[in-house]
């Protein structure tokens, strides 16, 4: 299933980064030949309308503008649904404090509950930034292939140097310890076998995804997957982390016994793209 971002949404809060975020959203809109829809949650006053007019005036695309009032999270999620948004672009802080993590900021709440793909940008810029390293998580999501496909497309578009595709050796410590009845050679063979299996899996997926102009590095991670993924992205100085959306929405318990993505939401190593073509699947 090819991922298509036909309708791109942007929540405008009139913050200092709004213009940069809009420019970033316009880049994605042009690339995908999509429609851009802006939403502002707040009273539609003449001053707000003027601010919006000025903001939109800085870009070449003419977006559709919608005004909503009420709870920002609820309204933005409702906007994504009613407007059939494929990709929501939003700004996010790198880190939440402990209280924010449990209560959840607007951006994080949207990340946890949205039914469409989301691009969270930490430091949006009006100038087009280089995207030299993209890390893709090829695990724990029904949309792994789509995540790789989107990452490869971005890689080709932004002339990315490396795309690092990560797989996880799950419960490696336990698996190796359970492998007690083997000789040293068998032990190494079993370890190599586990790695080979994962690499084969990724190569199989790459077989039908165009990626001729980007260099691919397949990397194995072990440990708490989201945490290790964030560490790896930091180590590689990644500009973008692409992950497939999980099968279900997150609850508070996912923050207590963190889901992989919760580690990333809590401390975003770089810009984050959560690929979620769920809506398409359900028609």
């Amino acid at each position, binding site marked *: 299933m090819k991922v298509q971002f036909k309708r791109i949404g942007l929540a405008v809060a009139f913050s200092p980064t709004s213009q940069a975020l809009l420019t970033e959203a316009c880049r994605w809109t042009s690339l995908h030949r999509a429609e851009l829809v802006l939403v502002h949650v707040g009273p539609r006053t003449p001053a707000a309308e003027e601010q919006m007019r000025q903001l939109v005036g800085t870009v070449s695309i003419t977006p559709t503008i919608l005004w909503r009032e009420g709870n920002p999270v609820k309204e933005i999620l409702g906007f994504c649904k009613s407007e059939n948004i494929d990709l929501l672009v939003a700004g996010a802080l790198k880190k939440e404090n402990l209280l924010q993590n449990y209560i959840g900021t607007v951006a994080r709440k949207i990340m946890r509950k949205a039914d469409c793909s989301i691009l969270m940008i930490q430091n949006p810029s009006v100038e087009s930034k280089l995207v030299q390293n993209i890390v893709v998580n090829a695990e724990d999501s029904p949309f792994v292939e789509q995540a790789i496909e989107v990452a490869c497309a971005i890689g080709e578009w932004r002339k990315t140097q490396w795309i690092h595709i990560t797989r996880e050796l799950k419960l490696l410590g336990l698996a190796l310890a359970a492998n007690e009845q*083997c000789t040293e050679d068998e032990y190494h063979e079993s370890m190599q076998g586990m790695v080979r299996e994962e690499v084969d899996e990724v190569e199989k997926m790459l077989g039908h995804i165009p990626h001729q102009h980007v260099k691919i590095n397949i990397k194995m991670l072990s440990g708490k997957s989201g945490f290790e993924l964030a560490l790896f992205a930091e180590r590689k100085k990644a500009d973008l982390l692409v992950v497939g959306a999980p099968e279900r929405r997150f609850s508070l318990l996912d923050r207590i*016994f963190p889901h992989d993505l919760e580690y990333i939401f809590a401390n975003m190593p770089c810009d984050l793209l959560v690929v979620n073509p769920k809506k398409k699947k359900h028609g």
Partner: protein
Amino acid sequence: MGKLSHADVVHLLMQLSIMLLLGRLLSEALRKFKQPAVIGEILAGILLGPTILGMVKPEWFQALYPVPSPTATVLTGFVQVAVIMLLFIAGLEVDLHIVWQQGKQALSTSFLGLIVPFSFGFIFPYFFPDFFGIADQHEKLTFALFMGTAMAITALPVIVRILMDLNLFKSKMGMLVVTSAMVDDLVGWLIFSVILGMIGKQGDSFSILNTVLLTITFVAVMLTLGRGLLNRILPWINKKLAWPGGVLSISLALCFLGAAFTEYIGLHAIFGAFIIGVAFGDSKHFSERAKEIVHQFINNIFAPLFFVSIGLRVNFITNFDWALTSVILLIAFAGKIIGSGLGTRLGGFSWRESIAASFGMNARGAMEIILGLVALENGLINERVFVSLVIMALITSITSGPLMKWVLKR
């Protein structure tokens, strides 16, 4: 600190050496048949203990493992420490974050995989206590609760090994089975801790309510505050102390501290070690490599001493009761196959896959033997029941792999 005589030191070292050597020898022999090491180690104990050596050459057995003697006391200490360490690694294996990630499916599978065998294990001893050798009415309840727990517990490493052999470890079904086994173990040890608290030691038994409250408080504190604290100190340990020495010493030190604390407050020491293990295992800063090192260190040095020692203390022939063993085996197979099978089926798998998964979950392995031994030491079960439980643990472990393969091939 007390001192052993020169002769005692030589004697103790000989005992340890013989246990490790024979345990390894028989484990290697069983490796040829793809069987877990624990079976070879139990057989080594049976050979060295009253069952074989004690029958054939009683004077040799007495000379090698005299009771009472200073070496016997030290050996008991070794075994006690081994049990605590084994429970620590059992705790390390429980990965709460993977369990939660599997979602409701894992919870429903593990719930049925726990409740059905527990009910089977509880009902039979409760209504037919005489058959199990229980006369006292109060004992009847604790014994039935124990048997329920013994039927519910699973052997995670055996399951992992089987799933790896079948190339199913990382599959959806594999992860469901592994996480369900983790939940069953966690709940099983919680229940067992409550049972041990109920019978108490030296007559200082707690009320059920006190024991349950103590257990839940300890678990809640360790898995919230304790886990948070570990997440703060582990990065410092990894960064500042020698690796893996630092993390190994500190984790085992905290394991013993937790074990001492639970023993002090009236819960069994093994429970503290288990929960500290869960807290460590769940920390994102406790690496998989560190986990493997702890596993290998304990599994290959302390575990053999523990499993060989079992055969040294119990006569497997005089205490073998074929009727009791058959009934326990029947309850064990029926409970897990029905419970886990239904649970996996409800989790969305086909009947064939569900039955295969239930055969995997049927392996009881080392955990059952530890559970049995602690129950024996605390006067909860007699030697006949213990022998039957050990045989059940071995048979379920040996058969689960082939049965799973057979069902999946059909």
